[in-house]
């Protein structure tokens, strides 16, 4: 039996029983047999679960005027939106990672309120539902909107499951009953739901869940809340009279562990009291013990006092808490820490604004301007509202009764002519992302790493006023790394910069390659990237991370060419003591503006970049 798959099925049953209480599930899995299996089981349980098309507009989501019906009948026909239609039920959102921010915001609100106001006003309708969000994002891609993730009770990650997983007979039998075609399934669901009403967690259990959430660095209280609810649902499913440890463990694995931002120390069999304080002294060593490795410090929102908390929790032996922790840790795949770090990193990216990429780009880029008369062609979208608005007052004039009454005109319909057509217009307000690539190698550090940092800080202050995104790549030693994924938070940019040490070789090819990848990624998101390279051009580490000036230069030049062919703008600030021909050579290959700054100071550097950016 595979524990993860077993849990996945329990989650499914819980969602079926109590969609509203659970709020839904964030299901991370690629399109594949595992997910298909899960979804087909869902199909059995709820044959008519509605799907939420990715390109849905707010009108369809919230309900409002049914345009086609209104047009054909000539009378206003209102229509319930998908949300109101899914009241007391589940709603399936495939490709949730590409969901338009507008739709995600509406969904988040509805999950909170359970009410929906139709487009254009009107009475609010009940929309208490559970959302099944299917997220197919790969490791390095931005995943579903964070505020939506937060609201969904269950978080399930099936990315690491193989295809032929088995589950316990208990849950399979249960699903069988719940999915049976006759009325038995309905009654069973009702009984479970009734049982759920009477089930409560006792104080000790609630305390255990809360403590565990805190130990895992889960700041939000929605996680433990969902966990409390899920534990009751699971107990009800098992026909148990009370919530037991097995329910708590399962609920913790589905609601808490995936939300963890730090790993609590696993309960040790015979923990000597001196052990907890020891690990903090160790990290400077080459290999810190895995349980002590928090997510990268910059990305760590939970308050710092978490650390002293967990040891304290270890000292008084708390059976329930420890049991829970053990149960939760059992579900962790081995590479969870690496994953933890990567999820945090990906989540930060984009700030939630340009998630849906190209859809959004073509659909609504920039701020809307009033629609203007024109035909919907060459990508321009018809502005229905304006078109109808233009046609509406002219209906009487165009009424055929003035001339002749034909058989067709008996059915009243709106008379729209080409002259009525209006199209959408948007003011292009492209967002820009400044990528700073900073050479922190020994040669640069010697000369003016500090100055470069100062210049970048000044530039950051300027980009703040323009509300640009910034992104910092540092390179030294054997490779380049993204110190800060694109963000608008300048405090974080500054922090990442301050933490950049100097010394080591100059892996310039890798830096250009990384910058190029970042830039292309940003461009796909509809952001215009530009690069500020601060480097002395003395490349001496190749892509493989080995030394060798000749090869490093060769690779730098070829990546520089790649940069130029993409037509991306860049500025090269030569940070060496006197102008370096090699830097100029690479800058030329990149098509960048080369700025030697033999007597640079931060102010001056910033001025140059600012002038060039204009």
């Amino acid at each position: 039996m595979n524990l993860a798959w077993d849990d996945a099925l329990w989650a499914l049953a819980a969602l079926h029983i109590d969609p509203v209480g659970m709020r839904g599930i964030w299901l991370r899995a690629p399109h594949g047999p595992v997910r298909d299996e899960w979804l087909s089981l869902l199909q059995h349980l709820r044959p008519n679960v509605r799907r939420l098309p990715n390109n849905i507009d707010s009108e369809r989501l919230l309900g409002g005027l049914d345009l086609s019906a209104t047009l054909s009948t000539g009378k206003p026909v209102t229509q319930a939106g998908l949300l109101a239609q899914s009241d007391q039920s589940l709603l399936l959102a495939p490709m949730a990672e590409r969901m338009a921010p507008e739709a995600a915001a509406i969904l988040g609100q509805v999950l909170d309120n359970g009410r929906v106001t139709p487009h254009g006003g009107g009475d609010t309708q009940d929309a208490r539902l559970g959302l099944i969000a299917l997220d197919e994002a790969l490791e390095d891609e931005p995943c579903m909107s964070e505020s939506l993730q937060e609201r969904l009770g269950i978080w399930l990650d099936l990315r690491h499951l193989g295809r032929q997983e088995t589950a316990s007979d208990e849950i399979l039998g249960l699903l069988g009953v719940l999915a049976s075609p006759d009325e038995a399934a309905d009654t069973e669901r009702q009984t479970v739901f009734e049982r759920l009403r009477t089930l409560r967690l006792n104080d000790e259990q609630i305390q255990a869940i809360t403590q565990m959430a805190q130990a895992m660095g889960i700041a939000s209280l929605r996680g433990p809340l969902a966990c409390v609810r899920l534990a009751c649902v699971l107990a009800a499913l098992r026909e148990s009279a009370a919530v037991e440890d097995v329910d708590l463990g399962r609920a913790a694995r589905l609601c808490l562990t995936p939300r963890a931002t730090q790993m609590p120390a696993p309960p040790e069999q015979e923990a000597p009291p001196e052990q907890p304080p020891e690990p903090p002294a160790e990290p400077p060593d080459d290999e810190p013990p895995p349980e002590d490795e928090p997510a990268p410090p910059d990305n760590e929102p939970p308050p710092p006092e978490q650390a002293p908390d967990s040891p304290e929790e270890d000292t008084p032996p708390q059976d329930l808490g420890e049991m829970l922790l053990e149960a939760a840790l059992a579900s962790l795949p081995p590479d969870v820490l690496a994953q933890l770090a990567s999820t945090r990193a990906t989540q930060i990216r984009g700030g939630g604004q340009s998630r849906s990429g190209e859809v959004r780009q073509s659909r609504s880029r920039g701020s809307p301007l009033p629609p203007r008369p024109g035909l919907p062609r060459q990508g321009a979208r018809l502005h229905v509202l304006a078109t109808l608005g233009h046609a509406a007052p002219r209906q009487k004039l165009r009424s055929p009764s003035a001339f002749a009454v034909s058989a067709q005109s008996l059915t009243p319909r709106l008379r729209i002519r080409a002259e009525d057509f209006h199209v959408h217009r948007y003011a292009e307000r492209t967002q820009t992302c400044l990528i700073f690539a900073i050479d922190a190698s020994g040669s640069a550090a010697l000369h003016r790493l500090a100055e470069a940092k100062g210049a970048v800080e000044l530039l950051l202050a300027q980009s703040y006023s323009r509300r640009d995104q910034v992104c910092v790549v540092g390179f030294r030693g054997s490779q380049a790394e993204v110190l800060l994924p694109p963000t608008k938070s300048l405090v974080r940019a500054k922090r990442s910069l301050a933490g950049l040490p100097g010394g080591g070789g100059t892996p310039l090819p890798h830096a250009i390659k990384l910058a190029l990848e970042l830039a292309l990624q940003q461009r796909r998101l509809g952001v215009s990237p530009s690069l500020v390279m601060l480097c002395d051009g003395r490349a001496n580490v190749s892509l493989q991370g080995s030394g060798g000036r000749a090869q490093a230069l060769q690779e730098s030049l070829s990546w520089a060419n790649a940069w130029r062919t993409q037509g991306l703008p860049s500025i090269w600030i030569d940070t060496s003591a006197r102008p370096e021909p090699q830097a100029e050579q690479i800058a030329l290959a990149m098509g960048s503006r080369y700025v030697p700054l033999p007597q640079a100071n931060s102010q001056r550097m910033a001025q140059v970049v600012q002038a060039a950016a204009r």
Partner: protein
Amino acid sequence: MAIPFPFSAIVGQDEMKLAIQIVAIDPKVGGILALGDRGTGKSTAVRALADLLPPLQVVVGCSYGCDPASSAATCTDCASLKATGKRPKTATRPVPVVDLPLGASEDRVVGALDLEKALSQGIKAFSPGLLAQANRGFLYIDEVNLLEDHLVDLLIDVAASGENVVEREGLSVRHPARFVLVGSGNPEEGELRPQLLDRFGLSVEVRTPQDIDQRIAVIKRRDAFERDPQGFRDEWALQNQGLREHILKARKLLDKVKVGDDLLRLCAQLCQALGTDGLRAELTLMRACRSLAAMQGHKAATPTHLRAVAPMALRHRLRRNPLDDTGSGTRVERALTEVLGA
């Protein structure tokens, strides 16, 4: 309306609750900006706000919920009602707390052409948007820092003028839109423009309670609420009622509260020491002091009140160096000690 979580059942969050009460007593203090991580109960507190406020008298048939008592605020609806010569009917309804969803279209926010009327009768009519709904109430924006720029611009303008002017799609409408702006967000995810920041009267920093017992209490109450919202509300109805009466009493007292010149001088000194631009900070400080004094049943505002409200009123107004990450809270504290003495 969905049943909101009762205000009096909110655990912890003292600063947030204080700010909400201050604004409930005197909406002129301005809006509230609540900053903090997700899942800390910011939106719960905001949505519970209606609990504190006495219901409004509105003109029946007016889309903007105008006050029947005031003759000055006339919207087009009231004007046409008046033209019929009949006395407008009035009704009571709870103070609106309107959610502005992130990513709302401009149509929904400002209002648009009424399709129904356009299609069925061929009439060009205005269908009011969220700004109209929020008139005389509160406009709540979750994740305000992720709001699209063009919406921010729009809100800044309306919040300042108290009037929504629609000139689009061939419509030409202006209607009252006086609302208190309440925003919440996580500053780690993006920063707010100073102009928008300035529109908020008070700002509070919300954290999850770190105390385990408090967290447990939150979870228990929330769970009880989700199981039986109405029952839970009934349980807390008495406390809510008490709170509401308290607010009403404070509102009556508000005009009688004296704010002496000494205190105004202190306000000005404080603002000067912190280098806040404009007089808005001083005004907010003064109003918040008065409101707090009224809340506590005092006849005059004192430096103690000032000390209590200053961080909320000033924190977000400091001219900020985007790269300076020392908390603005500490800067306010420092200035307070300087001006008021230890």
